[in-house]
Structures are given as C-alpha cells and as structure tokens.
C-alpha cells in the first residue's frame, strides 16, 4: 500500500507536467488561468499523499489547507479582475 501511494504521487506529478502544456500554449488568458487552477487542485492532493508517505499527516494537512485557500483565492481574483477590467485592456 505504501508503494501504491508513492506511485499515485508520481502519477499526479506527471499529470501536472502534462497540464503545463496548456499553461504555455493556451490560446488566451482564461485557458492559462484554468490550467493553473487544475494544477493547484492536483497539488493539494499531492501534498496530502506526501503527508501519508512521510507519516507527518498533521503538518502536511495544514500546508494542504493553506495551499487550497491560496489556489481558490487566485482563481476568484483572476475571474473578478478580468470581468471588471478586461474590456479596458482589450
């Protein structure tokens, strides 16, 4: 079971690298924001899995909660910013 959790962590890491393609080659800025949001969600799961691997679950859960809050705030702030100021910058 320990080896399977390590495999799951490496699988999520590879999926994050695959998602970086959409960040680099996104046709517009919303694709990039969406890909960054997906990478953030995957990274929260990755942090929880790393906490199970190192058996320091109490510490890594606080990091995961803080990272999820930051990721959520980033997406909401980007959406509100482009909804309000995007027409002016076009």
């Amino acid at each position, binding site marked *: 079971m320990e080896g399977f959790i390590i495999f799951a962590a490496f699988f999520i890491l590879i999926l994050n690298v695959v998602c970086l393609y*959409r960040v680099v080659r996104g046709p517009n*800025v919303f694709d990039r924001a*969406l*890909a960054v949001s997906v990478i953030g*969600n995957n990274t*929260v799961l990755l942090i929880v899995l790393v906490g199970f691997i190192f058996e320091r679950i109490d510490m890594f859960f606080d990091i995961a909660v803080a990272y*999820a809050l930051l990721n*959520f705030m980033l997406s909401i702030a980007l959406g*509100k910013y482009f*909804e309000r100021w995007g027409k002016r910058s076009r």
Partner: protein
Amino acid sequence: MNILAAVLIAAGLFFLSISCFGLIRLPDFYARNHAAGKSGTLAAMLILVGLAIYNGFDITILRLFIILLFLGVSSPTATHAIARAAYKLGLEPWTLKNRNPEFSHDGGTPQDESSSSNEALH
C-alpha cells in the same frame, strides 16, 4: 480494507488523468472548463475518501473531511468564476461553423481592432 482504499485511489487517478487529457485535447475553453471542473472534483473526492479508508478511524479523518468539503466547494466555484469572466468578455464557444473561436464583442473581430489591444488577452 486496503484493497477498497486502493481501488478508490486508482479510480481517482483515472479521473484525474481524464481531467488533464481533456484539458489538453478538447477544442474550446468552455469544453476544457467542463472537463477540468467536474472530473477534477470527483477525482479529489475519490482520492481523499480512499486515503481516509486507508488511514482508519482517527482524528485525521476530520481533517481529510475538511479538505474534501473545501475542495468540493472551491473547485467548481473557481472554474465558474473563470468561465463567467470569459463569457462576460465575449469569448465565443467552439461550433462546427466557427472552428477558430475568438473574442467578438460588439460585433468586431479581433483583427479589426488595434494591434496593441489584443496583446493583453492573447
């Protein structure tokens, strides 16, 4: 119990890979948003429930449940906020007649506008 947890985590990894390949392969921003939002949320819930079953009954289950609730609320909200901003700015969806969707608000194509204005969004 470990087998059930492994099956749940494997299902979560499957849905995560569906989310990422949908993000790469689908033709349009709204289609990518659809793939990423729903499949990613389901994958997060499956992986966290699998880890809770693997952990056993403990105080750790409460923390996992907090992360699960927060991800289940925040991930659809974030994708909805980004999609709403894109719709308000006039990003056209991909259709069979419009294979290359662009920003067309107020009837003007992006080629008609000034060249410096498109650099901020592309």
